[in-house]
């Protein structure tokens, strides 16, 4: 269980990024954080990752406060951020330095196979497409077997086909150990395709506007998916002060 208790964050320049965020995310849930720009989605993710510290409130993983980067928490950035001087397999195994070479190889090989990059294990990052690089970055986060995985709009720079392909790879990996996933996105369709629950955020300062439960489309119910999309889009529009009609989805 990941709990976020009344977290507030104000940056040194006075920007009030987050105020009064309260969330409880049960283990294994995929939660989407949806909202317009400036609503503090990325800030919240960085706080959970331990890269920044909140001004007040606390973030706890199974009861223990997160005060810095945590072995149980993995992060996939918006860009792949692969290390250009390491091959793909070494990039994926970057966080496994504490393991024996044999075990590291085995785990890297397994996760590379899951994201379909086995054939590229010995290539340089620069030889891969953007989608392949992001797949490697996701593999790098999964291979450390985190309890909580944070995804900061990792698919936003990719084309629609590649994005769907990555959704598939993400869910395949998730199904193995079922980590809790916090997915930041501004894409309603992406949230509906992946998440159990979507939290809509609102800017100035960033806070929680509303929550939408999503019957996972992977349960195979298109009606539920359309309903969830419509509900989420309505709430997102409301959080941005827009009218529903402009972006309404035809039934």
């Amino acid at each position, binding site marked *: 269980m990941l709990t976020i208790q009344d977290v507030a964050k104000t940056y040194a320049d006075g920007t009030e990024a987050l105020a009064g965020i309260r969330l409880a995310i049960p283990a294994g849930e995929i939660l989407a954080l949806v909202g317009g720009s400036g609503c503090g989605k990325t800030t919240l993710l960085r706080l959970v990752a331990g890269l920044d510290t909140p001004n007040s409130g606390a973030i706890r993983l199974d009861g223990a406060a997160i005060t810095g980067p945590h072995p149980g928490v993995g*992060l996939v950035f918006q860009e792949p*951020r692969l290390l250009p001087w390491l091959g793909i*397999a*070494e990039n994926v195994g*970057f966080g496994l330095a504490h393991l024996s070479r044999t075990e590291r190889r085995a785990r890297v090989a397994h996760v590379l196979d899951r994201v379909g990059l086995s054939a*590229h294990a*010995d290539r*340089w990052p620069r030889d891969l497409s953007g989608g392949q690089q992001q797949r490697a970055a996701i593999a790098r986060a999964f291979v450390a077997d985190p309890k909580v995985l944070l995804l900061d709009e990792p698919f936003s720079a990719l084309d629609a086909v590649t994005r769907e392909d990555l959704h598939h790879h993400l869910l395949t990996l998730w199904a193995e150990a079922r980590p809790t996933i916090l997915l930041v996105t501004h894409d309603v369709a992406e949230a509906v395709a992946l998440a159990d629950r979507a939290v809509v955020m609102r800017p100035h300062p960033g806070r929680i506007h509303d929550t939408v439960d999503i019957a996972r489309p992977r349960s195979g119910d298109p009606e539920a998916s359309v309903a969830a999309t419509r509900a989420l889009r309505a709430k997102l529009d409301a959080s941005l002060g827009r009218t529903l009609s402009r972006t309404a989805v035809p039934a």
Partner: protein
Amino acid sequence: MSTGSISPALGLDAGSSVAESGRGARSRARPAWRHGGRFVLGLLIPLGLALGWELATRAGLAQGRLLPPPSRVLGTLLTLAQSGDLWVHVRATLTRVALGFLGGAAFGILAGALTGTLPLARHLLDPGLQALRAVPSLAWVPLFILWLGILETPKVVLIAVGVFFPVYGGVSGAIASVDRKLVEVGRIFRLSRLALARRILLPAVLPGTIVSLRTGLGLGFLFVVAAELMGASEGLGYLLVEGQQFGKPDQILAAILAFAVLGKLADALLVALTRPLLRWQDVSRDVL
């Protein structure tokens, strides 16, 4: 040095054949004839000029007293080589450059690493070093001679000073411009300060460091000439001075030719030694 994190040592067994077609294919050597062709291309203009001058002198269009034809310069070089004198001078010069370069580069890397990573060291050292850098290095010569005598030590120290500044600037600049985003990757994986330095900072600053080492090496040759012009009993710079005093332009040109060859060879050696560390770089030279 531990290059375990730099060389792709973690390659999967099953992927070894992929390495051949994948990364191996990318970085494959150019066909030998193209490499050779480029080499010949680089020689075309110097050789053409030399040939033109030779012909002009032979035809009596120019008289070769002050600017001797290439044949005479090469002849002088050959005579120096055969008598063994050339090797004495080359050895003296190369020893000075090597010692000065090693000393200057070592201190440059050390100081650059200190000021690049520790704010206290930066605030303490950098302003002073920047001010010293503004002093033309030759201005130190009288002081070095007073302090260190006129033998080898002041020469090596002068070269080291010349090498130090570009290396220092290059290393501290390279550290300052390390991508913060990659450092964050290290933080997410909870690297210790030492591991962060070894696994992220070191590989990230290598390209800039190597460029600064090449600049430093070039300056090493610049300052060895300066040092030898000011008083030496051997070395290529001594050949220059002696050539001037005894009116032997062919000897001066022979020494200059030797400098050109040695400088180019030393740089090529440095590039060859460091190339394995930079195979990952996506350099445009591969494409152009």
